């Protein structure tokens, strides 16, 4: 009887999966075996394994990792201190609010801010560092990416921190643990679910970033997302674009399986 009601959840979700995930996936895999003239071929997969695409893949993963790490490093303390403020719910929402302004406009603003004569350089000059090129560098690329993704990291961590019973921290304190030890031994481990959700919500979309690679990084960073975009739209070589996408998805699935198993097994 129990099993019977539990499975009900699967019906709407599976319907969504079949219609909007599996169907496009089938289409994608099918396309990936077609060459530019619509003939069957395996050439796309051979091409994906050439150095140029492998390099691109390595870049994509490297930058996604960098962005995720930076988001975590900045997002965790933000979430932590947000929970300590008086009107924390309000502040949290105010942190999300800038997300709702159109991305292209914000990126244009960053072009102005990071420009040679922009606010950022004026600031650097004022504190004595001196002006330098900020646009089209790895720094600005990661910076703007983190800017875009930070709420995705902060929200789940904030929620995890909120769930933490204050008595637990008091107890650790009473037992003589220092602030840092309490954090490391009690707070952080108990908010891992939030950290995990945040990292997933940042890492996965970061893999296929494309727009800001051109806008902020001036195509100095080329990721798989950019390549797919190009193949689908400019070259109209849907086969090649689909192939890269398939590879990207396989890589994502591998990550899910690697990070998903084990830990959860223990907790269930």
């Amino acid at each position: 009887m129990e099993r019977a009601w539990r499975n009900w959840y699967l019906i709407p979700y599976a319907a969504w999966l079949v219609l909007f995930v599996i169907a496009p996936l089938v289409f994608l895999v099918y396309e990936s075996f077609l060459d530019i003239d619509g003939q069957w071929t395996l050439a796309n997969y051979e091409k994906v394994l050439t150095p140029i695409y492998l390099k691109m893949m390595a870049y994509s993963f490297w930058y996604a990792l960098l962005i995720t790490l930076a988001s975590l490093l900045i997002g965790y303390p933000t979430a932590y201190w947000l929970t300590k403020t008086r009107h924390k719910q309000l502040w949290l929402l105010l942190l999300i609010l800038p997300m709702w302004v159109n991305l292209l406009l914000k990126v244009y603003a960053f072009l102005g801010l990071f420009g040679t004569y922009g606010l950022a350089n004026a600031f650097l000059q004022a504190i004595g560092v001196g002006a330098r090129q900020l646009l089209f560098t790895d720094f600005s690329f990661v910076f703007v990416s983190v800017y875009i993704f930070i709420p995705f990291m902060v929200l789940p961590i904030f929620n995890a921190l909120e769930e933490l019973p204050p008595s637990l921290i008091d107890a650790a304190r009473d037992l003589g643990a220092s602030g840092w030890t309490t954090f490391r031994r009690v707070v952080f481990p108990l908010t891992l679910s939030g950290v995990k959700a945040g990292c997933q919500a940042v890492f996965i979309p970061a893999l296929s970033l494309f727009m800001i690679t051109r806008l902020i990084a001036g195509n100095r960073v080329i990721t798989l997302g950019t390549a797919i975009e190009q193949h689908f739209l400019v070259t109209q070589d849907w086969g090649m674009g689909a192939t890269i996408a398939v590879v990207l998805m396989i890589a994502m699935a591998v990550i899910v399986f690697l990070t998903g198993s084990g830990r959860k097994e223990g907790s269930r």
Partner: protein
Amino acid sequence: MKRLVQGFAAIFIAAFALMFMTHRLNEAEGYGGDKTVSVYNWGDYIDPALIRKFEKETGWKVVYQTFDSNEAMMAKIAQGGATFDVAVPSDYAISKMIEENLLLPLDHSKLPNLKYIEPRFLDLSFDPHNRYSVPYFWGTVGIVYNRGMLGGKTITSWNDLWDPDLRNQILLVDGAREVMGMALNSLGYSLNDTNKQHLQEAKRKLDRLMPNVKAIVGDEIKLLLANEEAAVGVVWSGDAAEIISENEALDYVVPKEGSNLWFDNMVIPKTAKNIEGAHAFINFMLDPKHAAQNAEYVGYSTPNRAALRYLPKDIANDRRFYPDLDAAGRLEVYENLGKRMLAYYNELFLQFKMQQK
């Protein structure tokens, strides 16, 4: 739990209230009726006052929809499912659309104003005899440079870009045909060259340009050049006109080795339902006064010879944007090179982009 349900109920109520408002507004505006002409164009690429005038004169209601790239627009039209009565693709896209049967032939008897178009801009290789398209705007690809930042140096040719003094000073547009075409032109080849050896040679030449390249960017190139992020940029003339009007220190040149001549033309795609209204709209836009008004609003060059009279003198006589076509170097229209050749162009361009760093 109660909060959750209340919250969601409030969201749904708010959404439906907004929906109702939109519906009323749409009705008030007259959209959704059957007396509409659906125009598919780049965003903000027409003077809205002209749309209102057209609606008043003809009684058709214009539904203006926008796209951000030729390729995306073609994908939409190829797939169908939506009505577009008039679209404004660029030259190379038009030849592709003709090839793929995405366009309906024009009825020239319903376009009497076609006679005002500069004859030189008619009957071009991408659409012989203008069976499917009529010119909307045109322009060139060239170099914008900042006189102040270059210390008085001027640029006249593509080859000037390879000057070692320009280290980290050049912005390129992110287009395979444009960048490869520039390299081909600089070598004296046609920008429609399909000889793979020539293309390889062009790619090697581009590799040597890399130290001078600061970034390869899209539409934001205008913002960056106007902000003096770089001294030199390879851009379309329409963009150039806009930024020159913003920053006095900038100038535009069509390189002497030759360059690209581009067109945005009006067409009637196969998704059209209102053929009558589509012709009326195209003819309306071909009227010299309307063409002039539009050119002033958009800032691009009009192909309408009769319209030049209605333009301010300093615009109509600006040789940078209305060049003397006989005196200018070799200006070529992009030809449809076929998917395979285009893929090859893109492959080389991608390699060029990848090896920076």
